[in-house]
């Protein structure tokens, strides 16, 4: 276990030195599928990467909060950081139709349910 800890620390240091966070996320189920909302303030569209590998969805991004030349900080409560979070997808999700949109620093992922998994009413035939 201590090896694992050492390893993750090394991994962390290997990346640019910016601290890494798991971005806070809301996972919501609606009738059409699952919606995941992630707070990623300061991440531009170009700095956002969404990877789908097998059943693992990895969302990573980088927020840059660089100080303009000549300014000095009086108070610092957030800074440049990297976001990374992995989600395991269930088989009920239709992987081909996953959609993502970024607005106001919130990434919304829409994971529609596969046709087979959607609730269906079974017709009863009068015999």
């Amino acid at each position, binding site marked *: 276990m201590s090896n694992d800890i050492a390893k993750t620390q090394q991994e962390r240091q290997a990346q640019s030195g910016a601290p890494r966070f798991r971005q806070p*996320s809301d996972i919501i189920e609606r009738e059409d599928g699952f919606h995941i909302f992630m*707070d990623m303030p300061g991440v531009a569209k170009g700095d956002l990467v969404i990877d789908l590998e097998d059943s693992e969805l990895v969302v990573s991004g980088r927020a840059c909060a660089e100080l303009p030349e000549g300014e000095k900080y*009086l108070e610092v*409560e957030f800074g440049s950081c990297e976001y990374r979070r992995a989600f395991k997808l269930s088989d009920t999700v239709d992987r081909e139709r996953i959609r993502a949109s970024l607005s*106001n620093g*919130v990434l919304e992922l829409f994971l529609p349910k596969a046709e087979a998994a959607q609730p269906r009413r079974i017709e009863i035939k009068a015999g």
Partner: protein
Amino acid sequence: MVIDFGSFYDFPRYWDKVFEEFFGPATLAQRRAAYPPLNISENDEHIRVRAEIPGTAMQDVELTLTGRSLVIKGERKAPEGKYFRQERPAGVFQRVVTLNVPVERDGVRATLADGVLDIVLPKTEAVKPKKIDIQMS
């Protein structure tokens, strides 16, 4: 009655805690302290306040400049649905920034990009540093 079995000699642990708090990354510790997190910076010309308010539209934010303070007020609305996990904060927030230099009220600009609110408050002429030329007599 509650019996405390803890050791009275807690000094080493206490000392560790003091060190951790002192040398630990301040940004991490303060991250959860208040909402929204603010960065305040300045140069000779202006004071700049930046706040992380993801998911809040400009019309849901109210900025008020009173005599000596800037008030950031707003509301974050949670989306509807059946929640499996809720980690993002929701609700009404407010933060007050006390300004100890006079600012030009008419020149205040605020922009919102990628969930980061950027407020620039220009300092009044009276407090800007001024170079004085020395005349040779």
